C-alpha cells in the first residue's frame, strides 16, 4: 500500500506532468498588468472600521447588525398588528354599544 504522503512513483509523475502542460508564463505582460492594477483604485476597497470593531471579525458585526435590524422590523410589525387588532376590537365594542366591555386584567398607570 502506497503511503499517500510519499511522492507518487516517477512514471505516474511523468505521465501526470504531461496533463495540460502549461505554456511559458507571459511574466512581463502579467507584471505590467499587475502594476497597472495596483495603481488603479481597488474595486473592492475594505470598509473602514473604527478601532473597536476592527478587533472583532467583520462577519460578527454584520450578523449583529442583521439581528438588530430583524428585531426592530419584528417589533414594528408586532406593534402594527397589535394596534390593528386593538382598533378592530374597539370597533366591535362600539358596535355592541359598549355593553359587553372586556374586563381589564391589568393597567399601567404613571404616578
Amino acid at each position: 500500500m502506497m503511503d499517500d504522503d510519499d511522492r507518487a512513483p516517477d512514471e505516474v509523475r511523468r505521465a501526470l506532468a504531461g496533463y495540460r502542460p502549461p505554456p511559458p508564463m507571459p511574466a512581463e505582460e502579467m507584471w505590467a498588468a499587475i502594476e497597472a492594477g495596483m495603481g488603479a483604485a481597488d474595486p473592492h476597497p475594505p470598509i473602514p472600521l473604527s478601532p473597536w470593531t476592527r478587533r472583532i471579525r467583520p462577519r460578527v458585526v454584520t450578523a449583529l447588525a442583521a439581528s438588530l435590524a430583524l428585531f426592530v422590523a419584528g417589533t414594528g410589525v408586532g406593534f402594527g398588528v397589535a394596534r390593528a387588532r386593538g382598533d378592530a376590537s374597539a370597533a366591535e365594542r362600539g358596535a355592541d354599544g359598549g355593553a359587553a366591555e372586556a374586563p381589564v386584567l391589568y393597567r399601567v398607570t404613571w404616578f
Partner: protein
Amino acid sequence: MPRLRGDDPEARRALFEREGPRVWSLVYRICGDYDTAQDVTQETFLAAFRKIGGFGGTGTLRGWLGRIAINLLRDQRRTERRRSETLIRFPTPESADARTGEPFVQRRVNAAVDALGEKLRVVLLMHDVEEYTHEEIAQALGIAPGSSRARLSRARALLRDALADLAPEDAR
C-alpha cells in the same frame, strides 16, 4: 513579509517571480485555458498584494496564494456558467488541436485524469504534479488535511484502475 506589508514594490516583484510560475502552472492545469490562466494569475497577485495585511501567518504563503487562485477560478467558472446559459459555446480550437497530437499513452492518462471529477483531480494535480503539501492543499481548498489525503488516495486508486492495462505485466 514585513517588506510586503510595507508596500515595497521590489518585495512584490520578488514574490511574483518566486511564486508566479507555480500559481500559473496550477491554474493552467486546472482550467486548461491560456487567457483564463493569465487573468486568474494576475488577479491572484493583485488580490494578494491588496490583502497581504490579512494574511495572518497561519499556513504558508503558497497555500494562501493557492486559495486565492482557486477561489478566483471558481468565481470565473460561475460567471462562465451563467454566460453559457445564454450563449451557445463551441469548443475552442486550441483544446481540440492540443489533444489530437498527443501520444496514445498520454491521451489515456489525460482521459483518466479528466474522468476523476474536479474534487479529486485538483488534489491529485496539486500534490503529485505541483508538489503542494496536504496542509497547503487543505489551506487552498478550505478542507481538512485528512480530506486531502483521502481524496489523493481515491484519485490514485481510480487512476490505477483506469490505466491498469497500460502497466507492465509484472506490475499488475
